[in-house]
């Protein structure tokens, strides 16, 4: 009797457990909903103005007036900041947090991407001279005035000496020479460069740091400077000029910022910004935890990926958040083809010579391009939250060549190209003109589910052409090793992040001597000129465009570079993910832009009543 009762109890328990799992969470209907571009409906405020009140040069934002107070809670994935020293940041989290605390002379207009003054009141370019006028009367968070001495110190003692992260020094170096810096008066400085160099101007967004606070540490040399402002620094001692200052850092838990009372931005009623009292970053380990925290209302903002987008979009109407479509991001996914025709130290070819003839055949590369079903990949792998990509510049780049329209998948076209290239189909298998079966490997980094799924779909598409494709996900580090050192690979599915503002940042990929010139990597210090004709043209374009200062002069050059890449297809671009972000509706003054995202105007954001 007892046993029967026990059995019934267990059965009931199992049934109940099963029932609770059955609860429909995601509707079974179409999960790929149409994402409307809700940015169209956003009414952007007029650009900020310079306003002088009592001899102090403020920036006046033209955004609607809001309420003061409240806090915004954001999650950040990873281990949190490594340093608060804006000159020494090497990872995204640290630099975005240091960016809150320190402003640079110039900044970027969030919609157009133009260079606009920030800590500077205005700037003039006269040939090779860049004159910067500083704001008068603005102060560091400890009340000391911000003057030309701080600018002189930041550039002469930190940037030009390569202290901290030397990438700005590298970027400012023109033909191995650093610019000269002259102090005209307490509020004017002048940079003099040796020759026109377009990427130079944007480098002036480098954060300006307080001389009276930094100098004792920078004088002690590199190692002292590298540990200066580490996360365990006492927050109240840090002197800043940004909209927020550090309040508290708790390892692996959170970073709390409070508003800087001396900030130089004001609203239409001449009240000092920012509106928010506090900005909290919760440090979380992975995406799942980030989602849970948002669901539990512990955080206010969440960037959505893949299948989550449909779910959140459907729940949006009944919830307290809005979902914003920020457009394609700067990330690009592509298949890269190894065009390397060199031999290694032992006289062995990096790439099998038979394969070399295929890969160097433009018709072959073009056939691959026609055969790949980008739309299918976007629908199935990115859940429709991506945009097919055909250009080397990302879709939100201000230099995007809009005349490259791309094409649909067309198997007939692909077969035609293969025929042109001398390949033959026999019993559904593809052979080259010497009778070799077309077979090659595609690598990607294992563990990246997105790329692994792309690999499977691409393999399918290419096998439809009669090729034999071995898809090999390998560990990320060994893939990088293959690409940059051993060169023994055929094709790889990879991704890179570009800059939407400055195509010249991609020079390591596109110029023939670049350290990331993956598709035809030359060893360091390689002397022989074996550039392909279009590689040579790319070299010339990158060199020439960097010397031109006007957007209108540079644009045609960079258009040409995208055209070359599109025609030659050393990289076959697949798609760019679209950024979708949910933020609680109570936050106002949200003006998302494809170029700058959602939170670029933190000082203007307020909590509505």
């Amino acid at each position: 009797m007892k046993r029967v009762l026990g059995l019934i109890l267990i059965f009931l328990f199992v049934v109940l457990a099963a029932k609770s799992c059955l609860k429909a969470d995601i509707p079974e209907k179409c999960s790929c909903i149409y994402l409307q571009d809700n940015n169209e409906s956003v009414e952007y405020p007029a650009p900020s103005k310079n306003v002088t009140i009592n001899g102090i040069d403020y920036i006046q934002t033209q955004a609607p007036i809001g309420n003061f107070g409240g806090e915004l809670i954001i999650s950040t994935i990873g281990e949190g900041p490594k340093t608060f020293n804006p000159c020494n940041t090497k990872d995204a989290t640290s630099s975005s947090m240091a960016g809150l605390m320190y402003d640079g002379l110039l900044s970027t207009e969030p919609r157009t991407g133009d260079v606009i003054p920030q800590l500077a009141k205005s700037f003039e370019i006269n040939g090779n001279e860049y004159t910067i006028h500083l704001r008068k009367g603005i102060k560091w968070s400890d009340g000391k005035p911000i003057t030309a001495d701080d600018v002189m110190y930041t550039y002469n003692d930190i940037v030009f000496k390569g202290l901290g992260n030397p990438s700005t020094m590298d970027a400012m170096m023109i033909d191995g020479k650093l610019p000269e810096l002259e102090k005209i008066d307490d509020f004017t400085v002048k940079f003099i460069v040796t020759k026109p160099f377009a990427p130079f101007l944007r480098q002036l967004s480098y954060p300006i740091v307080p001389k009276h606070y930094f100098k004792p540490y920078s004088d002690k040399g590199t190692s002292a400077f590298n540990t200066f402002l580490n996360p365990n620094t006492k927050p109240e001692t840090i002197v800043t000029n940004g909209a927020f200052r550090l309040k508290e850092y708790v390892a692996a838990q959170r970073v709390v910022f409070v508003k800087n009372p001396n900030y130089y931005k004001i609203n239409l009623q001449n009240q000092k910004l920012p509106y928010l009292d506090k900005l909290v970053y919760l440090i979380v380990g992975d995406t799942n935890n980030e989602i849970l925290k948002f669901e539990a209302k512990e955080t206010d903002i969440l960037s959505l990926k893949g299948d989550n987008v449909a779910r959140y979009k459907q729940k949006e109407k009944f919830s307290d958040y809005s979902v914003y479509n920020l457009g394609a991001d700067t990330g690009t996914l592509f298949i890269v083809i190894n065009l390397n025709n060199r031999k290694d130290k032992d006289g062995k070819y990096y790439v099998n010579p038979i394969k070399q003839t295929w890969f160097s055949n433009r018709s072959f590369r073009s056939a691959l391009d026609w055969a790949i079903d980008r739309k299918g990949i976007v629908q199935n792998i990115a859940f429709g939250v991506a945009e097919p990509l055909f250009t080397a510049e990302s879709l939100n780049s201000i230099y995007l060549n809009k005349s490259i329209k791309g094409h649909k998948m067309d198997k007939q076209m692909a077969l035609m190209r293969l025929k042109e290239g001398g390949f033959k189909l026999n019993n559904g298998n593809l052979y080259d003109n010497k009778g070799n079966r077309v077979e090659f490997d595609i690598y990607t980094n294992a563990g990246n589910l997105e790329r692994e799924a792309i690999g499977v779909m691409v393999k399918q598409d290419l096998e439809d052409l009669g090729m034999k494709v071995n898809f090999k996900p390998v560990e990320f580090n060994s893939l990088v090793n293959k690409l940059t050192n051993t060169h023994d690979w055929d094709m790889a599915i990879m991704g890179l992040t570009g800059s939407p503002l400055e195509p010249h940042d991609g020079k390591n990929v596109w110029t023939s001597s670049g350290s990331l010139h993956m598709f035809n990597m030359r060893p360091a210090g390689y002397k022989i000129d074996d550039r392909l004709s279009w590689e040579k043209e790319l070299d010339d374009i990158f060199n020439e465009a960097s010397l031109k200062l006007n957007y209108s002069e540079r644009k045609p050059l960079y258009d040409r570079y995208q055209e070359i890449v599109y025609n030659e297809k050393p990289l076959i671009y697949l798609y760019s993910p679209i950024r979708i972000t949910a933020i609680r509706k109570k936050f106002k003054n949200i003006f998302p832009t494809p170029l700058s995202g959602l939170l670029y105007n933190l000082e203007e954001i307020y909590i509505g009543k």
Partner: protein
Amino acid sequence: MEFAKYILKRCLQTIPLLIIVSIISFFIIRLAPIDPLAELRLNPSISQETLNKEIKRLNLDKPIYIQYFSWAKSFIKGDLGYTSAGEKVSTKLKERIPNTLLLTVIVIFMTWIVGIPLGIFAAIKKGTVFDRILTVISSIGMAIPSFFFAILMLMFAVKTGWFPVGGLTSYNYNEMSFIGKLIDLSRHLCLPVIVLFTISLSGLQRQMRANMLEVLDSDYIKFARAKGLSEAKVIYKHALRNAINPMITLLGFEFAGLLSGAALTEYVFQYPGLGRLILEAVMKSDINLVMASLMMGTIMLILGNLIADILLMITDPRVRKTSAEVQ
């Protein structure tokens, strides 16, 4: 005197052990095809000079045995070196150790306070309904993987909103009153403690029950009963003393698990402890951090065993005698 000699001997024995452990782990980590600089290499805006500087800083340009010796040299001096991000390993560990200790000490304390009496009870009442229910519960506790249980608990927290989703303190912790802080801490600790408690309780309870049953079955207990001793005296004076010995060895292992035992649960709950730090370090092949934590784990294990042995020598005359003979 005997005692001090024994401890000294044991300490000396640990030195070769530590060397072997460090060599094996160092080489396994370094020979794994993980390049700590892979991310930097794929960053288009990083120049070759910057890369070379990083390689120099991390000593990656030297052969592996030289890397090991330079690590060992500074380890002996007490310098744990820097992480690959340039922070001091010792400060990183110091930030996390108190958090992990807080969690594990609570859990161990609770498990032992509850688990030992439950085990004794289950053994005495063997075969009753109480014993059977305990068996079912502890079987569930032993069968359920900790990370899965932790995820279930997290879902529970999200759906009900009764508990915070992971972490150790709320973002406004520092502005709370003392009582508020205490409540906040216990709310955060509640779920991870439940997970770890349930899992380790089951094992401990079963172990205690088995020991106790074995002892209760022995001749001297029968003799004690036959002698007419009261049941309480039989159990608490004769049976329990003999049944507790294996538990002391277990306590030594628990000591070793103080710093590393909760890694998975910590990770799921985003608990700011050592486990999460080390897991992230292993993924990035952050050699100094991983080595420091491995060495710490080894030392804790050896120490735990030593403590258990000493405790055993105190409680059990048989062990005292044999270890003296061995010497």
